[in-house]
């Protein structure tokens, strides 16, 4: 029993080491300039298109819900006009980066793992090596970079759409004048708020890209394995995004307040 637990722990530590080396290999390719830009653009298109509609819909819904809940609660305190800062700050500092990372890992991230996993089970990754080409450079880096470039853009889209959702509620449900709502929104968002969200989204994009590419690259066990590793990639991404969000929030609040 103790031996089994010991083996399990050793297995997990070695998997973590393997994942860190994998990330190191990815960065080595990127920083040595071996980036295939045409493939990165292709991946940006696929990953962006895959996720943008669902992110717009969920951000709009988040903004509307935040606006509705905020207006009801704030009305009790006679502070209805604070809906705008509530919606804007919640979205920009926390909700948009985290929700976008969740949606992205569930949609594009899962797609990355499934694609690489299928290639691995069909020996296409080994074939790439056999053809004298580095599969990290050819198959992983374009997906990884696309993820890192697309996600922050999607976060900004999510923030804008979410704020628009809150605006609609503020104007039509809470009966606030449009000009005041817009002014309060602009005034409430300082550069620290915007950049803290953007910094978070950058870290989340690396986490999602790393976890999903790694799980896909080392998928085994045929079609069943592709399903298992894809589910695992999404679950691990969620956990790591949640944990890193807590750490980053603490760090950012300590630095910037």
């Amino acid at each position, binding site marked *: 029993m103790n031996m089994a637990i010991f083996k399990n722990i050793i297995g997990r530590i070695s998997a973590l080491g393997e994942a860190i080396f994998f990330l190191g290999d990815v960065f080595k390719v990127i920083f040595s300039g071996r980036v295939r830009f045409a493939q990165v653009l292709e991946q940006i298109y696929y990953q962006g298109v895959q996720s943008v509609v669902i992110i717009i819909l969920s951000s709009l819904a988040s903004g509307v819900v935040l606006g509705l809940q905020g207006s009801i609660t704030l009305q009790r305190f006679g502070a209805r006009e604070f809906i705008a800062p509530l919606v804007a700050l919640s979205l920009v500092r926390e909700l948009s980066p985290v929700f976008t990372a969740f949606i992205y890992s569930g949609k594009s991230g899962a797609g990355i793992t499934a694609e690489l996993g299928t290639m691995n089970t069909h020996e*296409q990754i080994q074939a790439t090596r*056999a*053809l*004298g080409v580095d599969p990290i450079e050819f198959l992983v880096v374009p997906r990884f970079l696309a993820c890192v470039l697309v996600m922050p853009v999607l976060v900004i889209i999510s923030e804008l759409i979410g704020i628009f959702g809150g605006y609609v509620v503020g104007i039509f449900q809470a009966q606030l004048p449009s000009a005041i709502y817009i002014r309060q929104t602009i005034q409430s968002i300082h550069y620290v708020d915007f950049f803290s969200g953007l910094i978070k989204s950058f870290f989340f994009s690396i986490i999602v890209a790393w976890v999903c590419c790694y799980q896909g690259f080392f998928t085994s066990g045929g079609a069943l394995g592709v399903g298992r590793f894809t589910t695992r990639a999404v679950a691990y991404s969620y956990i790591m995004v949640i944990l890193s969000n807590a750490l980053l929030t603490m760090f950012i609040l300590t630095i910037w307040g």
Partner: protein
Amino acid sequence: MIKVEHLSKTLGDQKILNDISFEVATGEILVFLGPSGVGKTVLLKHLIGLLKPDCGSVIINGKDITKLSRVEQLKMRKDFGYLFQEGALYDFMNVFDNVAFPLREHTNLNYQQIRGRVREVLDMVDLDDVEAKMPSELSGGMKKRVGLARAIVLGAKILLCDEPTSGLDPIRSFDISNLIRQVAKKIGVTMVMTSHDVDNSFRIADRLAILNEGHIEVIGSQQDLLSNQHPFVKEFLKPEAV
């Protein structure tokens, strides 16, 4: 020339290869026979450096490839062609792009030259009018032919074929076996192949070896194998020998 010395490999708790040594002369075709799961594919992957042995060496033209760095191994593989069991074609590329891939990666040929070379190797493997097709539109035999075309398109000096007849009906197996021998002899390549198809292997090989429980039971000519009295060898060759 390929020289393998005392090669051993354990995967998990299982010893797959146990002190394997053999040589393949330039231009020779050596076929490894054996039932499924005896380590034929593992052996083949060691010859191109896709797997690292626990001990032993793989010497290709005087250079031990087990001692090369990852970058050196990638460079060295330009001299190899590897035909995977299921072809391992990129399913996001059509046939033309699959075959052209090594040329685009390792040469400075222009589009017209690449097109010409792709057509030449597709002709060599008897494929016509398939360039625009995706791998999912091809039969098993056609995938192997495209895989063979991709393996030789760079002018490989060493060709490794992993069970090229598996999953094919007897007629297609016969055709692909003849084709592989014909192509190998035409381009003068040194070839190592794995198979459990005794009949077709006898047709292709200059020499054959039988793998059993991680070691070579017998290696030699067709006659050497047929005259071997080891019970496993006799049992393995029985249906064909009769």
